[in-house]
């Protein structure tokens, strides 16, 4: 996993609540058996005027000029700003892969759906929860000054707004540690292989019907 320490970049404002993972990456792109290449189809239904199918040449499609990610400077954004319950719906990790493949390193919202939050942390995409008024302040500042840079700092657990206001956020220590160091979860867990075997032995004794 790519480590996350500090990201300073352009913020793309996506002024919607309940952005679901179907919207982030529509179903037809889930047919891929790869982890990469989803970026051109992130928010496909909102981003293009013509219906998209896997394998289409992106340069021949009709972008929707009203969609934020089609507008400069937001097409260069590395931080996404949205309203509450971001990433709800389907568990598809492809949604996270689409955002990272587009170039996003962090998403700021007042709240996230649980599975999306977890998937994000496993792919070096930092989900940042700020209070509603703080999110509103960022929307206002980005609207007033498109292209203004925001800094997200995982070491310090801070977001620095364009006007230099500092907002604090929290992330549980375990996730923070793994993100800061870009750690491989599975290798870490396998250090506890003996504990897992001991659990299985206990379960075989106590609940023998479970083991098949």
């Amino acid at each position, binding site marked *: 996993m790519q480590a996350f320490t500090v990201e300073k970049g352009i913020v793309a404002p996506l002024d*919607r*609540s*309940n952005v*679901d993972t*179907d*919207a982030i990456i*529509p*179903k*037809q792109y*889930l*047919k*891929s*058996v*790869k*982890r990469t290449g989803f970026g051109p189809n992130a928010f496909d*239904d909102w981003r293009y005027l013509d*219906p998209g199918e*896997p*394998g289409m040449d992106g340069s021949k499609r009709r972008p929707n000029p009203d969609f934020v990610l089609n507008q400069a400077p937001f097409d260069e954004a590395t931080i996404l700003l949205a*309203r*509450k*319950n971001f990433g*709800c*719906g*389907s*568990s*598809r*990790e*492809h949604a*996270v892969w689409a955002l990272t493949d587009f170039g996003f390193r962090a998403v700021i919202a007042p*709240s996230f*759906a*649980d*599975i999306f939050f*977890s*998937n994000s942390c*496993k*792919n070096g995409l930092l989900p940042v929860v700020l209070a509603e008024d703080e999110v509103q302040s960022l929307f206002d500042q980005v609207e007033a000054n498109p292209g203004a840079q925001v800094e997200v700092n995982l070491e310090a657990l801070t977001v620095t707004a364009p006007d230099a206001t500092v907002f604090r956020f929290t992330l*549980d*220590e*375990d996730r923070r540690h793994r993100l800061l160091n870009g750690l491989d*979860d*599975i290798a870490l*867990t*396998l250090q*506890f*292989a003996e*504990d*897992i075997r001991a*659990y*299985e032995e206990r*379960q075989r004794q106590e*609940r*023998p*019907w*479970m*083991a*098949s």
Partner: protein
Amino acid sequence: MAGKTLYDKLWEAHVVREEPDGSTLLYIDRHLVHEVTSPQAFEGLRLAGRKPWRGDSVLAVPDHNVPTENRDQGIADPVSRIQVETLEANVTSLGLKFFPMADVRQGIVHVIGPEQGATLPGMTVVCGDSHTSTHGALGALAFGIGTSEVEHVLATQCLWQKKTKAMQVRVEGELRPGVTAKDVVLAIIGRIGTAGGTGYAIEFAGSAIRSLSVEGRMSVCNMSIEAGARAGMVAVDEETIEYVRGKPQAPTGEMFERAAEYWRRLVSDPDAEFDAVVELDAAAIAPQVSWGTSPEMVAPIDGRVPDPAAESDPVRAEGMQRALEYMGLKPNTPMTEIRPDKVFIGSCTNSRIEDLRAAAEVVKGRKKADNITLAMVVPGSGLVKQQAEQEGLDRIFLDAGFEWREPGCSMCLAMNADRLEPGERCASTSNRNFEGRQGQGGRTHLVSPSLAAAAAVAGHFIEPSALKEA
């Protein structure tokens, strides 16, 4: 000290290791796998030179991409075909249990798990699919995971989790005739909202929940995620135990009785404390129809499409306005005046035998309305289909002008050929009415199987009891 919730009991029975900060290595008993969210996990395993920790915990099946007709011709879409073939190659090379498309046991992963006894009370069950919460109906801790976690479970049989808060949703009293499990869960989501359960595991309780069949409880738990909760569950009772008895992978004989004794303890203690409690009056729940693009946007069948102008919260009003524009609906339209173009009866929410019986009861002796261009019934599994055919349900649907299809996820998410065209309106027994969910530009109204059937017959939404005599 307060007693324990069902969630406490399921959690505690699966702790492998707990760190001081509460991070817990949780053991996973059953790992369900489908073709969409697993290929990258198997690839990751292979690249790292790892093997599945406990291959016999896996049950794999293709369901999202499979065609629901002309199966003898294989999968026409080459991209879908590769994904299904990739699953088959991955599981066969590792010797994992697998039901291919041609197997009568193939079906939607959340239908076949309980049907096979692969998911049992007291288990932890995961799948790279948010509707894994379905299996909680058996008194299991079941939740959806992402592909990185699929790989992690394959490699270690465990997941790092933090215990969430516990919410009890209590539905007390008697449901009105014609009100189903689907209406109950839609009413719950309408009440607490799509993020109401975020950060919680929900236990559905109360006399109205206990009065539901185990299949009905599955429909309720299935949509926990639509209320934001990763896991939903119902306490074990004798209904649960009788449901499990005799299932192919369930224990047998003395071992079954020993298991059942354990399962009977999988209930919340009377003095258990929940972090949140929500109560609904069963008698006040009417059949529900969704009108918008979020599952919380529901109205009773005798109600009207709401008016954003009457909403005080501006962000909410804007969301409603956007939803109405997408759905092509005007405020204050009576729900019974909404006319679908298509009807879809299926999905992991409502494709079990009882769902098909409920729909068939409404359709029997009647015909599909002329404005309905397609009414399709997609059974949840090959075994459900077989059972329905033995009961003659297929004839009832076919005689009424419905299509009777092969099992799979189908038009719930339109990854196969079954989809809505832009602007088409659908009465659907599925679980999500998001923009584009059933096909780009498609408009979804979530309903129960009996309401979907009634809409197919009348050509507009209507309570089945209000239909003219067959």
